[in-house]
């Protein structure tokens, strides 16, 4: 058994592919590539391919992480080349490495920080944008409405935003960098953060690109404590 970790780019027509469909496309690509996939046990064996956090439909990425388990060891570079020859347009393995067998299994579920580059086109006012970003970061709380099971719920997204910078801004265009925490109890969606700083369709056209995905290194318990520290001091005088 060998774990191959892949960093996958998603773009072109494939940016509209949902996460579930992406996983199926990778699985079929791996079959076409003739990789010796390891399968789950049981009545309905499935190839063991896991992924980190799902990317929103419509976003592009250079940082999707996949772990493919192989029944026999293979050269990761060969796995990368064979997969790239078998994946549909817009999906490309940028890097592949073998996770050392002597270590614990690659914990793809612990990838809990995502970084995005967001390009905005529309009536951008650089000064106002700078202020909106500063105000957002200043605040402890920013509530957005989410609909779940036909019921509206208020969610504070501020604690999940680790960083938000304006990299470029001019009259019709701005580029932002956003780092969010994919915490065990929730996260902030890019469109919610943008809405918080006054950027929303249809006036603005937004291109979201995931640039990195990594692990904070906090365990579940630590993460929870950290979240509690970050939550607004609502009861404070």
């Amino acid at each position, binding site marked *: 058994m060998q774990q191959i970790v892949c960093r996958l780019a998603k773009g*072109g027509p494939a940016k*509209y592919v*949902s996460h579930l469909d992406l996983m*199926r496309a990778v699985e079929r*690509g791996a079959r076409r590539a003739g990789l010796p996939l390891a399968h789950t046990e049981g009545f309905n064996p499935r190839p063991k391919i896991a992924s980190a956090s799902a990317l929103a439909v419509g976003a592009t990425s250079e940082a999707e992480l996949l772990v493919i388990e192989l029944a026999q060891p293979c050269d990761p570079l060969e796995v990368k080349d064979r997969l790239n020859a*078998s994946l*549909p347009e817009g999906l490309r393995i940028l890097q592949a490495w073998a996770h050392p067998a002597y270590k614990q299994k690659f914990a793809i579920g612990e990838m809990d920080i995502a970084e995005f580059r967001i390009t905005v086109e529309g009536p951008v006012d650089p000064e106002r944008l700078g202020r909106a970003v500063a105000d957002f970061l200043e605040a402890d709380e920013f509530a957005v409405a989410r609909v779940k099971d036909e019921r509206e719920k208020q969610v504070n997204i501020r604690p999940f935003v680790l960083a938000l910078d304006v990299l470029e801004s001019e009259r019709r265009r701005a580029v932002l960098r956003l780092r969010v925490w994919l915490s065990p109890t929730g996260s902030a969606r890019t469109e919610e953060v943008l809405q918080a700083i006054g950027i929303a369709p249809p006036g603005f056209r937004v291109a979201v690109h995931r640039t990195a995905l990594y692990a904070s290194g906090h365990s579940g318990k630590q993460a929870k404590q950290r979240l509690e520290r970050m939550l607004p001091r609502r009861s404070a005088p």
Partner: protein
Amino acid sequence: MIDDSLDRVLPLVQMPSRYTDGEWNARHKPHDQVALKVALAYPDTYEVGMSHLGLRILYDILNARPDALAERVFSPWTDLEAQMRQAALPLWALESGRPVREFDLFGISLPYEMTFTNALNLLDLAGLPLASAERSDEHPLVIAGGPGAANPEPLAEFVDAFVLGEGEEVIVEIAEAMLTARGKGREATLKALAAIPGVYVPSLYEVAYDGPRVASVTPRDGAPAMVCRRVIEDFDSAPYPVEQVVPFLETVHDRVTLEIMRGCSRGCRFCQAGMVYRPARERSVEHLAQLAGCAVRATGWDEIALLAFNAPDHSQIEALIDRLLAEHAPGGVNISLPSSRTDTFSVALANRLSTVRRGGLTFAPEAGTPRLRHAINKPVNQEHLLAAAGAAFEAGWNRIKLYFMIGLPTETDEDVDAIADLIAQVHARGREILGSERRGRLRIGVSVAAFVPKPHTPFQWWGQVEGDALRARQLRLRERTHLRGVGMEFTSADPAWVEAALSRGDRRVGTAIRRAWELGCRFDAWDDRFNAARWRQAFAECGLDAAFYANRRIPADEPLPWDHLSYGVTREFLQREAEAALRGELTDDCRTGPCTVCGACDRAGEA
């Protein structure tokens, strides 16, 4: 291909990957290096259309030619349609992203009547005038085919030419005729097409009416008096696509489709497919094994579905399954029989297939009494059915499906009540075999369709049972079936009524289809989209009596709107079968019994 205008619209619609192209095995050919450009459309969503074998076959054949290209077009869902109309975005073909109107040929597959408004909508979204007569040399030729063209008359006003029958050979002849007629104009091209066997150019035929009835159909300009459908003689070596496009989305049939057999000779009298795709033909085990291997390697799918009207009818089915299991089961590839007439033999087959994964089992006795099953020529023996269902329960299935049809010719209340009895017997058998432990998991899904009289079948002369009477029979059956674990599903009477009116319609029905489309009818095949009130309004506004088409018993000597179109089976054969139905007489399957002289093949009367 996604261009900028599409990129603006796609974030606003559901399931955008329906519209993006970029799937594995999609073919991209340069438009400036190819003489004949074909847009192949399926008038339903991507998920339904991508499951359609006919489209895959034509796509493959055309793209294999150096002088032609084919691209795919599906009906945009209503959310995208609204965006397209607002942004004045014309219908495009997926691969190149180019507008459909820039193509030479716009081919539309017609799976059945309930897609007709979607077909009109495709023409309109492409920016083409709906009426064939209003289109000019600048527009692509619009050619339609498929089972929905068995009686193409209701669409005669909108479609330039119809293909009757199987497309593998005729598509090549059409492509060549269009290349030869290049630059000679629409009229000349259509006349050239009309000379190809199996191609029906409706504008070359004059229809005379006698009141509401069709009196005669007269060809002009040398068009043939009778257009005969095409049939592939050498089915085993007919082209078959192995590099099938692999969708990102989960489609209806998301797997390798392997057509092992075409046609059926059992002769159920209500079944149009069983009449118009005669004779029954098979592919050889050797060839199928080779196709399956190539297709699995080329697609990465983990399931091979053996497609046939009734897969167990293949004379070598066991050898085929053994061979495919030996070659593919070790790689985790599942083999399935999506459509089979379930009997004890096929339960045994299904049981062997379930070594990899277990699908559902469907039994389709259609009718409740032996008398009616004889009348429809589907003599499913009650004891055999119970034995087969019992075998399924014994082999570990807890869940089976039963298919029935209500409103069949000669049906009485007694026949309806017998359906309830039959369900109860299967249910009792299930409980007995499953025992106290598994009894709670017993599920019997009962689907009850409404009979729709279809052209080119022995039942084409019978009217559909009128709406209220049909609903009363459905209610009668529902009231008699209250069993734990039995779920019942009925086809609504209203869509069945529209389907019947369209299926037996003449050219005048086209005006009602157009009106229904104008009133907003789309996706009529989708229960939640179908709107009966709009269809009633459309027929009424066009001064047409839908009941005349849907519910009337047509006298045997009356000319039919489709009499000038032959699907092989002769009118005499259909008439003989209609009389046999009234007498409750069975007609043999010609693969096992004597020739029935149906007219569909050359060996009529032999042996």
